[in-house]
């Protein structure tokens, strides 16, 4: 007798959080708990132990740019669904959900701003938007940021936070690697500079493209920056991973980073670089 197979591949949308999962405002390192406004006031860095909480794109821009100086660009660039992609849910539904959650149109925000009065172009990613994954819209926005920086003759500051390429766009997501790299090369040919700040996490296709091509590359303390994530490496190699696998600190030791810069110092650090790259030093 054959029993009918039960399809269990249904995602539980409102499933309760697993009990071991901490509240997002609870410090994973020292268990201190904070309200949103408390963390906002300290740039989302734990005052007790220095852990860097994830920071969304808007808060990041506010923390770097001079008040009121940021002018957003290319807001009209939005994702489409070229493959009619459907896994457990349609891609378009995931996009809408991400938009509701973040208030952003995509996983990257670009525009121009001043930092300590120095003009620069910004390209800031938001991990909350589908894991900061890079699809066609992110690739296009980053490319436009390169062009705008070249046109204005200002450096481009990229702040990345990404799980990698956006699988729902298939091969076109992979093509954003060569696309963004070509844009960076055009910027560099035009005499422009790219300052790349890697934040937790910057992995996969974003690390393997523009984020690694900065004239200066820095990361926030504790940021994961690996091409392959720890779980994939563990499963593939069955190796015991070092506790600090892929983090900014060992990457700095191995020579892949110019510095690790704590978030409270980032604005001043970037401003110093902008002065150095500006033609008159002011």
């Amino acid at each position, binding site marked *: 007798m054959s029993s009918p197979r039960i399809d269990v591949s249904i995602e539980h949308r409102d499933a309760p959080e697993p009990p071991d999962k901490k509240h997002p405002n609870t410090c994973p390192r020292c268990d201190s708990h904070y309200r949103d406004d408390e963390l906002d006031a300290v740039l989302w860095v734990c005052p007790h132990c220095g852990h860097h909480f994830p920071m969304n794109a808007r808060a990041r821009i506010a923390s770097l740019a001079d008040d009121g100086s940021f002018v957003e660009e290319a807001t009209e660039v939005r994702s489409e669904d070229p493959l009619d992609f459907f896994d457990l849910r349609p891609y378009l539904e995931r996009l809408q959900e991400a938009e509701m959650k973040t208030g952003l149109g995509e996983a990257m925000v670009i525009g121009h701003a001043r930092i300590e009065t120095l003009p620069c172009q910004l390209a800031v990613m938001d991990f909350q938007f589908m894991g900061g994954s890079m699809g066609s819209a992110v690739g296009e926005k980053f490319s436009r940021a390169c062009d705008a920086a070249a046109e204005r003759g200002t450096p481009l500051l990229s702040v990345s936070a990404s799980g990698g390429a956006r699988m729902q766009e298939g091969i076109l997501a992979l093509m954003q690697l060569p696309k963004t790299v*070509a844009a960076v090369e055009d910027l560099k040919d035009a005499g422009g500079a790219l300052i790349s700040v890697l934040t937790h996490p910057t992995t996969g296709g974003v690390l393997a493209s523009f984020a690694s091509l900065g004239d200066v590359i820095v990361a926030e303390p504790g940021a994961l920056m690996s091409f392959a994530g720890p779980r994939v490496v563990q499963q593939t190699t069955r190796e015991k991973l070092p506790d600090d696998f892929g983090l900014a600190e060992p990457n700095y030791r191995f020579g892949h980073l110019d510095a690790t810069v704590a978030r409270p110092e980032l604005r001043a650090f970037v401003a110093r670089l902008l002065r150095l790259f500006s033609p008159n030093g002011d």
Partner: protein
Amino acid sequence: MATDHELRLRERLARLRNVNLLGGARVAGELEKLQHQLERIAEETTDEDIWRSVELARHQDRPYTLDYVERLLEDWVELHGDRARADDHAIVAGLGRFQGRTVALVGQQKGRDIKDRVDRNFGSAHPEGYRKAMRVMDLAMRHGFPLITLVDTPGAYPGVAAEQHGQGGAIARSHALMARLEIPVVSCIIGEGGSGGASALALGDRVLMQENAIYSVISPEGCAAILWRDAGEARKAAAAFKPDALHCLELGVIDGIVPEPEGGAHTDVDDAARLLGETVEEHLEELESVPADELKRRRRARFRALGVYA
């Protein structure tokens, strides 16, 4: 399986799409007509066809890079080592004569038997492999040798040492160097084109795929494990992200499809090599008449145009 007619149709369409200068009404009309025909055909590319490509692309007897080198290049000299640390056997690089001219060739290499497979790390390169590739690309550029790249990898190696040696940065810089080359570059996916480890060698003026090759952002198993939470759903994943040559052509990712012998490249390696050689030669010849800086400009423009967004 795709018919010859269909392949020609799609190639013509891809070419028309890429020729911006010919945006006149007549051509636009033809584009529409072709698109219409293509839409009819596209309905017939079934999920089974896609999965068949996945299986053929990974077939254990499928010809690998050195099988083509042996049949297409004379005076082949393989170059070893990244001049810094190691010689990564997952990537081969060297110089040879192709149809009367010196070319550089770079490609991933898989192994045939168990020992060989381990030695080649199943075609999954470490950063050292990409650095070797870059060294040979740089050599080609300085001497004005055209570059042929053959892509066949499940992906760059995800290991602790690979990360410590800078896998992400090496892949990024390989892309970047290819975007700077002022020589003709023809790339062909000859088996698995897996993720950034594949595209790092595929930033060509022309990107081709063999009929049964696949080119994808992630392996079907990897995609299934993440989105379906079950690696066993690989078929569903492949059907969803469509890594086959026809879809890649349709999306403008590749410029042409290299036909394979009936039944797949492994059924007649000599014939597969002949078909590959003919197509590569055709594209190289076209590219050799284009000034070097113009090649670079067009190559960047080609890749910068990729993507679908509102």
